[in-house]
Structure formats: C-alpha cells, structure tokens
C-alpha cells in the first residue's frame, strides 16, 4: 500500500529530525519541545504498526507526563535567558485570523463529501482485550512490581525535590 509507505517515510523523517533538533537546538527549551515531537512521531510509527493501544499509551505518558515534566524542569534549571524582543500582543489580529481559519475549514468541510461518510472501520478491540488479559494473568507479578517501582520512584522524586523551609 502506497499510503502506508508514505506515512512511514514522513513519520520516520519527523521522528529522526526532531530527535536531532532536540539535541542540537540552541536553547534547551526548544530541544524539549522537539523531543515531544519525536515522541509523537514514535506514536505515529506505533499506529502504522497496528499497535493503537501502545500508541495511545505513548502519547498519554510521554507527551502528557514526561514532556511536560521536562519542560517544567528546563524552566526551573535554565538560568541565562536572552531578553526577547518586546512585542505588543496583537489581539484583534489574532481574533480575526482565528475566525477566518474556523470559517474556512468549516466551509470546506461542509461542502466536501464528509457528510456522506460514516464510521465503517473494522477496528477490533480484541488486541486490547488480549493485552489486558495477559497483563493480569501472565504478567501479574511484573505488573505488581512495576506498581511498586512507580510508587517508590514518585516518593523518591518528591523527597529529593522537596525544599526544607527550616534550613
């Protein structure tokens, strides 16, 4: 299928390029954002590989938790920030552009053949069910140990990062 090939090439290029940018960007915060895009690309590759559940897990954990945590840490840790050029926010222009985009996309979508399309995809939830079954049957002990590791690591992280007010 040519669509699959195109998706694979584009997503791979995005993933690899974002990974390079994340290490080579001048400012660390831009690198953190590029790293989030790299995580997103990996999730896209998971979808191409028919691993939808893992892709959703990747987006929730990596982009929802880890990338946000990284960006907060970068903001806490980085000292030197070059003063950016002071720009007055142009609010009316923003509103006009937002409304224009919404109207444009809405009109195009309304007059396309999207209205005649219905959800006929044959996504089967059997893989998700099988993963859940194997997690609580075959891998029950690793799952419990994983819960212990997660709890311990979060307690450790909070203990490390806590500021003692008395000192």
């Amino acid at each position, binding site marked *: *299928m040519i669509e*699959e*090939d195109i998706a*694979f090439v584009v997503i*791979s290029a995005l*993933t*690899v390029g974002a*990974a*390079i940018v*994340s*290490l080579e960007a001048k400012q*660390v915060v831009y*690198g*953190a954002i590029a*790293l989030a895009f*790299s*995580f997103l690309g*990996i999730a896209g*590759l*998971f979808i*191409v*590989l*028919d*691993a939808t*559940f*893992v892709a959703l*897990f*990747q987006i929730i*954990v*990596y982009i929802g*938790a*880890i990338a946000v*945590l*990284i960006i907060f*840490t*970068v903001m*806490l*840790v980085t*000292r030197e920030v070059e003063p950016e050029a002071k720009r007055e926010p142009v609010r009316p222009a923003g509103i006009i552009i937002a409304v224009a985009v919404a109207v444009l996309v809405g009109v195009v979508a309304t007059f396309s053949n999207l209205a005649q399309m219905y959800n006929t995809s044959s996504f089967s939830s059997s*893989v998700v069910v*099988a*993963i859940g079954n*194997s*997690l609580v049957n075959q*891998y029950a002990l*690793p799952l419990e140990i*994983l819960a212990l*590791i*997660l709890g311990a*690591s*979060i307690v*450790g*992280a*909070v203990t*490390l*990062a806590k500021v003692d007010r008395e000192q």
Partner: protein
Amino acid sequence: MIPLLDYVLVSTVLLAIGIYGLVSKGNALRLFFAIEIVVNSANLNLVAFSRYLSPVNIEGQTFALFSIAIAAAEAAVGLAIIIVTFRLNKEVDVFKLRKLKH
C-alpha cells in the same frame, strides 16, 4: 508492506542519535533527552518485532507498555536529581560536577 528492516533501521538511527548525545553533550538535560531517545528506539523495536514475528501480536506490545512505565519512573527520579543538582551547585554541566571525585 514495509519490511521489518526499515523499522529496525529507523530504530538504529534513533539509537545512534541518542548515543551521540550521551557521548558529546555535557548539559544534564541534554543527556536526559538522549536517554529518552534511546528508550524510544528500544520501544519501537519491541513493537515492530511483535508485529512481524508474533502471530497474536501482544507480547511485544505488553513489553513496550512495561518499558514506557519504567521510563516514566526513571524520568521522575532523573528530573528530581537534576533539580537538586542545580539547587546545590547552580550548575547542570556534568563536566563541572566533580564534588564526588575529590
């Protein structure tokens, strides 16, 4: 159909980028980025091999889920260590952190 080799090559490129970052960067945050890239390349390998080699296609996905959860725990602890290091030394360059050595 995309051959399995393509996924392995993409994963190898990501691994190489991560190792390059681990070797050549001094900022602790960049090192953290590099570690995450390496973990992601490993996850990609797990899912790809599961898709191509396993008839039921769940073992590798389960392993990838475990790996992602472990990576989350590692991220929490690692970032906390970076914050504490910065608070104590006003510095996150690992080439300048030599206190434990002396």
